[in-house]
């Protein structure tokens, strides 16, 4: 699941990518075999009715596109969170030699300040 550093990618969120949603709708429509004649089972492909591999392929693509959108088309807070984490780690290294440097965010306001304000 290697990703480029989020700070080097532009800010993005999935809902602002219309083609992504066109793809989702198309795949949902492809999954259910409404476009094929009801009652047909033959021919069998890989031992299963021919419509089923089409549906499976659409489902796999649906999962793949959803996972891709999560990783590649969602980049709102991560650059700022990375920057704050790096700052915290640098401070931590200077102040205390032991302990972990990962920002926990537990029971704190979290790494978000003015982010999201217009």
């Amino acid at each position: 699941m290697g990703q480029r550093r989020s700070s080097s990618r532009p800010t993005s969120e999935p809902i602002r990518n219309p083609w992504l949603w066109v793809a989702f709708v198309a795949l949902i429509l492809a999954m259910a075999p409404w476009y094929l004649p009801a009652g047909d089972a033959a021919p069998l492909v890989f031992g299963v009715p021919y419509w089923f591999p089409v549906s499976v392929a659409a489902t796999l693509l649906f999962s793949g596109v959803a996972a891709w959108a999560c990783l590649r088309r969602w980049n709102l807070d991560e650059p700022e969170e990375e920057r704050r984490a790096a700052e915290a780690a640098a401070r931590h290294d200077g102040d205390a030699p032991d302990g972990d440097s990962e920002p926990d965010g537990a029971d704190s306001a979290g790494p978000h300040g003015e982010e999201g304000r217009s």
Partner: protein
Amino acid sequence: MNDLIFGGTSGMLVLGFYALTMLVIGYVAGRRNPGTRHTAKGYYIAGGGLGFVALFFTLYATQYSGNSVVGYAPTAYRTGFPWWQSVGFMTAVIVGYLLFAPRLYTVAKREGFITPTDWVRHRFASTPVSVLVVILMLWGLANYLLEQLVAMGHAISGLTGNTVPYQLGVIAFVLVMLIYSWLGGMRAVALTDVMQGIALLIGVSVLLGGSLYLVGGDLGDVVGDMLREEPEKVAVPPTEVSVNWIAMMLLIGFGASVYPHAIQRVYAARSERTLKRSLAIMAWMPLVTTGVVFCVGIVGTELYPGLSESESEQLVGLVANSVAAIGPFFYAVMVLMFGGIVAAIVSTADSALLAFSSIFSRDLYGRYLRRSASEKRQLLIGKVAGVVIVAVLLLIAWNPPGTLYAIFVLKFELLVQIAPAFVLGLYWRRLAAGPVFWGMLAGAVFAGVCTVLDLEQPVGIPFGLLGLALNAVICVVGSLLTRPQADPEREEATAEPQPG
């Protein structure tokens, strides 16, 4: 799930092991994070600090309950190949998250949200909208909990060979659930979900492996026999079934992603990176969960042909019996799997219970019943409310409804109505509180009444989805007809996040 050959002593031992492990995890989670027990943020959303492993498994265990195994395999048995839709609609839940979670995560971290209603209050500043959202969520959560309690009782009595009666089994595991939830809050719930999720994944995989072994490893033969005996389960389904398939993807995609406990997991993520990586893997999980269960149901048609509807409800138990008889390894894994099913049911119930407690304590008690209550008192009231609702639901669970699936759909009919307040509310500044209230109310009443009256679904489209469409139309048209009011706070709530 009656008469499991591996039920009885070994089943009781496994259940005891799971129960003890959950208690230890709750104890450790509470001791290692003392803030967990004393602050609402610590208790209800783990301080917004859940890391990747815990977040992924708690998302997983929350979305997949025991019903995803014991209820979906019989449906695949009865429906045949069209039940592949269960993989699609579980993936649609992740697509549903993509509609709102990225922006909601940002706003939630900035504003310190704890309950889903916090967003609604922040966005609309309307008491009627907030109260209606609270009512719909509490109703949906209670129904959801009830379903889990019913399933829990059946699973425990089946696994213990009825040595542990239905009622006693439910009470014992409810007590375990309450204790570890009280000790460690969301952190304990998430950590127990790791164990529960792993047990379920391994169990269903071995169940499929064993059942394929029993039919000689050739799915082609199974399909061939289905074609001869029950061709309608293999052929292209009628148009109404296909329309229902698409409709269920939309309904569950919208509905399950705005579950109150699902929204709280968005709040609980340690970072955006953690959240999106967890959801990216979740997008593949239907293939290895409901996809595997679907295959078990299909193989079941070969192993146990001709079961009636009520007999087929026992399918997972029947298949597990056959698989356990293969040898000691399969026997052991089947015991672990059934323990895992009970654990998965508990893990779904604990998430819903925690969300119920948080909404009751913060959105009802702390806001309307006793505004001066301290945070500590609100927490205590939330915990007590959780115990009371479980006690009430237990009384109902002892007269369980006929089929699990019917109530599964019913809770979506109402819960899905809060979706426009989140999806449209996050992105469309003009969305006004009045139309949101009337849209939600109209959608919920329409869907609820049609469902209660058991009317026939038009072309296979669930009433919940029709109610949602009505709801969305009222929201959009009503907001367009409402004079926009300049309100800097509302504008800020929907502001597009800027790079840091």
